[in-house]
């Protein structure tokens, strides 16, 4: 077998460690495991072929996620179901916390929700909210990296994140009440 080239070696070292993250983001973007697999595969091939454009030692994860997202937008169909949009403008920003302040001020109910439900709630977010939330709060990218990846201002990243987190909290809270993980003190009638 031929000795791998220097480019091949650095690709292996810099790009391959991000396969798990790429797969998770692909799952959240496509909402479908087999599409996610195709998307990751396409992304890795494209990345390999344009590896010369990557500056060694810079942000490989961000670079790969940019390719993944562009590939998704250009070549993949959007998820079938339209996410449930909540009327957030009508909701007072910190109403949720205030309503459970007395019963669970530290939000320990979050720990009781099973992984599958957490993912389901993320998947129900509108596309532009889900994207920033996954990159920031699941994959740990900095706001500046996300802004660069999505080609939007940092301020937009911040405001989308703010609303995405609130919407997700509201959804998980509703689920926790339904499951009896948490008992709101005064139930609305």
């Amino acid at each position, binding site marked *: 077998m031929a000795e791998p080239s220097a480019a091949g070696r650095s690709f292996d070292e810099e790009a391959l460690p991000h396969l798990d993250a790429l797969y998770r983001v692909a799952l959240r973007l496509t909402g479908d495991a087999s599409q996610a697999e195709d998307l990751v595969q396409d992304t890795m091939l494209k990345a390999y072929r344009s590896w010369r454009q990557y500056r060694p030692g810079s942000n490989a994860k961000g670079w790969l996620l940019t390719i993944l997202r562009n590939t998704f937008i250009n070549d993949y169909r959007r998820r079938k179901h339209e996410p449930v949009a909540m009327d957030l403008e009508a909701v007072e920003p910190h109403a949720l916390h205030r309503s459970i302040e007395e019963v669970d001020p530290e939000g320990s109910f979050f720990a009781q929700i099973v992984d599958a439900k957490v993912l389901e709630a993320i998947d129900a977010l509108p596309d532009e909210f889900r994207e920033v939330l996954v990159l920031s709060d699941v994959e740990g990218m900095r706001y500046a990296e996300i802004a660069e990846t999505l080609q939007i201002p940092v301020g937009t990243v911040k405001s989308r994140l703010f609303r995405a987190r609130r919407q*997700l909290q509201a959804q998980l809270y509703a689920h926790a009440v339904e499951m009896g993980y948490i008992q709101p003190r005064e139930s609305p009638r």
Partner: protein
Amino acid sequence: MSGVDCAQALTNLGDYLKQELTPELMAEVRRHLERCRDCFKHAQFEESFLTMLETRAGRETCPAKLRARILALLRAEVEDH
């Protein structure tokens, strides 16, 4: 009270926990949380939420079959050159 008030502290809470505020604002929010019990509780709540997201939604891994397929495709690319 100098610095940020409750409304400002709450609006910046997520960014504060992510350490995404300017150093000045980081310090002001920190000072506010030290003094304000209500906002401190909010911060704990927000932190539980962010910790949950990080750990519970970040556990899925790339399937071994997909990883193997990608590696094989990359090796084939190398040999084409």
